[in-house]
Each structure stands twice: as C-alpha cells, then as structure tokens.
C-alpha cells in the first residue's frame, strides 16, 4: 500500500498536470502541430479546400528556384531588411543618446517618436499612401506650386525607398526606448572618468558607451532584422505590392500565392524557407556580435 507521502506526491503531480496541461495542449495543437504541418503541406499541392492534398514531393521546392517573382521578393525583402535595420539602429541609438536623462521635454519627444508604433501597420500604410500617392497631399501641394508629380509610390525604385522610409518612421521609436533602457546600464562615472582623462565626446562614446551597450545593440539588431524580414501589412496598405509587383516582400508573396492563387502547398514551402532563413540570420547576427564583444573586452 502506498504511503501517505507517495500519495501526496502523486496528488501534487496531478495538480501540476492540471495546471500546466491546458496551456501545453492548446499550444501543441495550434502552434507545434502547425509547424510540422507546414513542412508536410510544403510537399503537397494543397489548395486550401481539398481534405486530402496530394503529395508532390519536392516539386514546390524545385519551383522556388525558378520563380522570378520570388527572386524579386527576396531582393526587395533583403534591401528593406538591410536598409531598415541600419536606419532603425542608427536613429534609435542616436536619439537615445540625445534623450538620455529625465525631463518633461525628453519624455515628450520620446512619446512623439514612439506613437506610430501604437498604430497598426495597415493604418500607417494607408495614411502614408494618402500623403505620398500621385494625388496625395504632398503631390497636390507640389503641383499647385507648378512642380512635377513626384513618383513616391509609382516608380519601382522610389516606392521601395518610400517603403523603407515609412518603416523607419513607424518603428524607430521602439529602438530609441530599447537603447535608452540599455544606456541605464552604462555607469555614468565611467564616461565622466574618460572625459576627465581628456577623451573627446566621440572617443568616450566609441570606447566606453558603445562597448557597454553591446547586448543592447545585439537585441536591437536581431529584433529589427527579424521584424523587417516578415513585413506584410505595410506592403498591403502602402503599395499593395506595386508598382508592377516591385515592392512585394516574401511575406506578401507567401500570402498572395496561398490565398489569392490557392497554392497553399507552394506557400508552405516558401514559409518553411523564410522560417529557416530568419532563424539562421538571427543566429548569425547574435554569433557575430558576441564575437565582436569578446574582441572588445579582450
């Protein structure tokens, strides 16, 4: 007969199961299973309706290689991610340094830089397309002064540049706040000491503040990169992928191919690749940064 102690332990185990079970079960069904399913569906020709999708093997992956739309989307996404990550972090760190310190004015400026993040990317895109479109606010103003229409959203290169600028406008406030949090970890006495020893502001920043900010920089870089690689809502509302598909990102193409063209199998193959690339890039940045930090401290 089990002792009261084993009984109590068994009851404890049961309670634990009761407490953690529902979350685990739901998470497994709706997140873990789908990840596995994405891999399976990527090997099929599922159209979103049939109950029994046919297995087509690696055909979807073979199609990936020869898809010109995908090649263009990859270029667009990487340009957006690279330029965006650079812009977000330069502005984020720059303004964090300017706003470091408590004052009413600083918290006002921080709020003004942060507010676009509260809005949905969809709204941000519609708003900017009403401002920068061919008949938008800026062009109405320019033409009323006798100028030519500026092709912010109607020329492929301009449209991509516009999109990068809007992404940065909408998101750099988050980076400012994250860098401000990181700056709290930099002992002010260190900077004082460097300045007293005759270091210029730039030298103190380069050799004291920046190394101490190492982990913040890593977080910000990875965060911006991962977020930008899955840009979707903004594309829908700002350019709808246009002109002529020249601003389609990978995420846009995945959902377009899947739900507009009914090729969910092919879309799954694209998303499996996107998932892997995102994970690898994030890992690579973390690794590189870590090595960089080691070099600074050794």
């Amino acid at each position, binding site marked *: 007969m089990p002792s009261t102690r084993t009984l109590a332990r068994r009851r404890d185990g049961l309670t634990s199961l009761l407490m953690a079970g529902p979350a685990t079960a739901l998470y497994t069904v709706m997140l873990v299973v789908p990840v596995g399913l994405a891999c399976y569906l990527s090997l099929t020709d599922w159209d979103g309706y049939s109950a029994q999708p046919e297995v087509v093997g690696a055909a979807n992956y073979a199609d990936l290689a020869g898809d010109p739309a995908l090649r263009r989307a990859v270029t667009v996404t990487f340009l957006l991610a690279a330029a965006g990550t650079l812009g977000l972090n330069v502005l984020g760190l720059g303004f964090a340094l300017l706003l470091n310190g408590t004052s009413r004015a600083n918290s006002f400026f921080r709020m*003004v830089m942060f507010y676009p993040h509260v809005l*949905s990317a969809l709204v941000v895109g519609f708003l900017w397309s009403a401002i920068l479109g061919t008949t938008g606010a800026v062009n109405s103003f320019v033409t009323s002064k006798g100028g030519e229409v500026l092709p912010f959203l109607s020329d492929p290169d301009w449209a991509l540049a516009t999109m990068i600028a809007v992404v940065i406008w909408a998101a750099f406030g988050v980076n400012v706040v994250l860098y401000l949090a990181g700056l709290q970890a930099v002992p002010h006495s260190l900077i004082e000491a460097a300045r007293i020893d005759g270091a210029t502001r730039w030298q103190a920043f380069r050799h004291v503040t920046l190394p101490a900010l190492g982990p913040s920089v890593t977080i910000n870089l990875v965060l911006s990169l991962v977020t930008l690689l899955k840009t979707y809502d903004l594309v829908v509302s700002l350019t709808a992928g246009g002109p002529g598909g020249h601003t389609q990102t990978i995420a846009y193409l995945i959902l377009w191919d899947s739900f507009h063209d009914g090729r969910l199998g092919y879309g799954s193959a694209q998303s499996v690749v996107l998932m892997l690339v995102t994970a690898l890039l994030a890992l690579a940045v973390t690794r590189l940064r870590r090595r960089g930090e080691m070099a600074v401290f050794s």
Partner: protein
Amino acid sequence: MTLHSEPAAPERAAPAATEAGAGAITPRAPRRTRTGPPGRRRRWLRTGFLTAVAVLMLIPLYVLVVNAFKSQQEILTSPFGLPAGGPDFSYLQKVFENKQFNIMRGYGVTLLFVVCVNVLSIALAGPAAYVIARSAKRRYRALMLFFLAGTFIPSQVLVIPVVYVLKTLGLMGTIRGFVLFETVLTLPFSIFLYAGYIATIPRELDQAAAVDGAGRIRTFWRIIFPLMRPVVATMVILNTFSVWNDFVNPQIILGPGSGLYTVTTGVYAAVSQYQTDYTVVFPTLLVAIAPLLVFFVFMQRHIISGLTAGASKG
C-alpha cells in the same frame, strides 16, 4: 532572442523595460556645468533639432486630422491647410453610416476579442508558469524550453497550416477558432515572463499557504497571482495591442465571408478600394485610431514599457 539564451533574462528584462518606460530613469550625475556660450549653443541646437524631428513625426497626424473635415476638392487644393470655413463633420458622420463596415460594430467585435484573448491567456499561462517556476523537475524545465521555442515562430508562417488545423477541427471562420489561435500566439511570451516573475516571489509564501491547508491551485490564484500585477499588466497591454492591430489572422481566419470585421480588417474593407476618395480615407482612419491614441497619451508610460518588453521577444 538573445534575451532567451540567458537564464537570468526575465528578471533583468522586466525591470529594465519598466524603468525606461516610466521615464523614471535614475537621476543623472550632475552634468559638467559648462556655462560658456558653446554649452548653451549646443543645448539650443539640440532642442531645435529635436523640435524639428517632432514636427516631422507629427505632420502625418496633422494631415490626417485636418483633412478628415474637408471636402475632396479642398483636400486636393489645400492638403495642408486648416478647413476653410470651419470643420465639416459630415464626412465623419458618413464613416459611422458606412454600409460596408459598421465601425461601431467593429469596435464591439474587437473589444470582445481583446477581452477573450486576455482572459484566456491569463487563465492558461498563469498556472502553467507557476508550475514551471516552482518545480525543480527536469520535465518542467524542458516544458519551458518547449514554450520558448514558440517565440521564434513568426505568425505569418503559421497561418497556412493553422487554416488546415482549424478546418479539421471545424473552427475555421468562427470566433472560437480565432480567439484560440490568438491566445496561443500570446502563450509562449506570457509563460516566459510570468515564470521569470514568479521565480522572484519567495517560496515561503506558498509554504505558508500550504500549512493553512490551501491546495496549489488556490495558492496560485489567491496568493501568488495578486502579486503578479505589474507583469500581468505588461502582458495585457501587449496582447491588447497585438490583437487590436492584427490584420493577417482575422482577415484569413475570420474571412471576408463571415461578415465579422475587427477595426483593422474593417479599415481595409472600407479604405482599400477607395484609396483616392480622401473623404473616405481620412475620416475612416481617424475614427479607427483616435481611441488608441487617446489611450496612448494617457497611459504613455505603461504602454511604452509594455510594448517595449514585448518587442524584445523578437
């Protein structure tokens, strides 16, 4: 992501973010007092520059507000001017009468989703995090890692297979299916944040409750949960905004056929086909964002810290 590789992260991440958001940044050591002209000029330059940036940031909002009260003709001829002859409220009124998208209903539906997801998320993640934080067993530490892996999966990648799962379960196009999926998306980070926070609460509290005869479920809800208020508030803010602003999931899971619009999918339905009719675009966008912005201005500190804590989950 780097946050997750270090076990000490939750304790560190939460307070850091709160501090930044609260603006209650540790008082600075006294600035080197430079009273000479260069110092003053530098300060003026800084203020001037920041003011210019603030104006740049606010111009889109200004354009949105002034043009919501103008006729198409006036928007086209003077896009940056104040409405001549006073604001015309008829365009705003039309937003409320839009047949394609009933915005008040959109607000109702969205609020319902926000409440359901938050309640369900807390009810599921809270106890699970408690068990994980309080158990020394290896299997619960593995469970934490299992949940953590979920923070790396972008939801756009999930939406295709989730459609398959929901169809199999007969939940596609239903409120239940949508709420369950949105809740699952909140679980990994909630559990991560909650477990980290619970670990900082002394175990003596649990033991005292046990001595008084409370079971573990009761101990959690009665003793531990009330102490978790700050971290739960952070998660509620984060989940509220992510459900409110989500576009892909409601658009695909609820679908245009269901007639169920959130504020975000409703804006898409109302605006995307009339993008050059600015008397539709500006008033609709204004009505869609005004409550959020007001909420933001009043709860600025909490929202910034909440959303920033969420941002660092990657």
